[in-house]
């Protein structure tokens, strides 16, 4: 059994059939680029993995565990999801980070705020970002914070859904190289050429 599996997925969305009998297997540490044309359900696919979209038919498994209402929490705790919208919780950045690591499941990570300083620099964010309100940040800044949060959560599977939209070219290359360098199972949803020729397996439908 592969690390991540979609088996015979059927999904209707607004009366439109998006998947009918879709199959996909992804191995551990594999890096995959979903580059299907718009409207084919790329985001729905990754949301199915997180249990936010439930297929009408078919089965999904993550690390040998079939996704159901009972297993959804443990599966979510294996996945880091960063989306284009980067909906980080509202509030002052440093408090938001602290709050996330106070969630029961994340407490074992022993988070210290001092690690953030280096990460802000890596992501080209000013140090005073920590004291700012999430609402006052730009979309690109929020995305990078969500990436830092994702890296710090240290989970096995990363889903990066259109994360390069708010970034300039140099920063884009720098961040994509950084992220792809990790030994994680990485699923990328994007149309950006920046991911091409970097050894990702391209999946389209």
């Amino acid at each position: 059994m592969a690390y991540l599996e979609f088996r015979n997925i059927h999904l209707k969305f607004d009366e439109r059939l998006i998947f009918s009998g879709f199959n996909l297997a992804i191995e551990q540490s594999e890096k995959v680029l979903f580059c299907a044309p718009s409207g084919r359900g790329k985001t729905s696919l990754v949301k199915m993995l997180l249990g936010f979209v439930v297929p009408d038919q078919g089965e999904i498994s993550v690390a040998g565990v079939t996704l159901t209402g009972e297993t959804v929490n443990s599966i979510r705790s294996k996945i880091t999801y960063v989306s284009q919208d980067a909906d980080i919780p509202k509030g002052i950045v440093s408090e938001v980070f602290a709050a996330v690591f106070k969630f029961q499941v994340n407490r074992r990570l022993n988070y210290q705020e001092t690690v953030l300083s280096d990460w802000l620099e890596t992501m080209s964010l000013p140090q005073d970002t920590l004291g700012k309100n999430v609402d006052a940040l730009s979309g690109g800044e929020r995305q990078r914070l969500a990436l830092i949060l994702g890296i710090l959560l240290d989970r096995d599977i990363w889903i990066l859904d259109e994360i390069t939209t708010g970034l300039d070219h140099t920063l884009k290359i720098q961040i994509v190289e950084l992220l792809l360098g990790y030994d994680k199972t990485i699923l990328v949803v994007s149309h950006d050429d920046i991911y091409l020729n970097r050894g990702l397996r391209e999946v389209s439908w």
Partner: protein
Amino acid sequence: MVFIIPIVIINYKMGIGLNKRLIYALFRMTIQLILVGLFLQYIFILNNPWINSAYIFFMIGAAGISTVKTCGLTMKNQLIPIALGFGVPNFIMILFINQFIIGLDNVFNAQYYIPLMGMLLGNSLSGNIIGINTFYSGLKQNEREYHYRLALSANQWESTLPWYKEAITACMNPMIASVETIGLVSLPGMMTGQILSGSMPMTTIAYQIVIMAGILITRYFGIHFSIILTRRKAFDAYDRLKI
């Protein structure tokens, strides 16, 4: 009623489409109050604890139905949780007031039991509607943020907490504002009624303080219980909001 005539004429001349609803509302109010008056008169004469309590449960049920409808919840799943959620704190409060504050021999005495419970419930009702609406519509409007919190491995309680807190605040804010300004802006209805029927102002003040404190307390616990009880059936196995 004579003063209604110019209103109807002005509305008609200016094409303000209120007449039908206005007349219907006034008519309905009159019939409703006459019936309630007759009914209450009868209940007061009988003054049987069981009948009085049955009437109270009827009020709780009606308030529950009203909340469920206004907040767009499902009757089948949510009526009982809502009715329990604010029925129980109000019921405990009325017994407490009647027994320990007023010191009645019979805590189910219709003269106190029914009107005071009506005031408590009426206020809990409006508070509950505000609070429940804030909670569920907040979750619905911020679905992406809510899902992101779940994806960060917050459990259902942790991920809904911001909207839970918002709901309690939204429920209590108007109450606290009205407690602050009571008597300055307007005399409360209960005091006005008592004064009109011959009570001294200081007597009415004592009752008013008791009832305001009672309302504040039951409103607070009512909204907590209502959210806690309704949320059990408001999410699916994947913690997605079903409403």
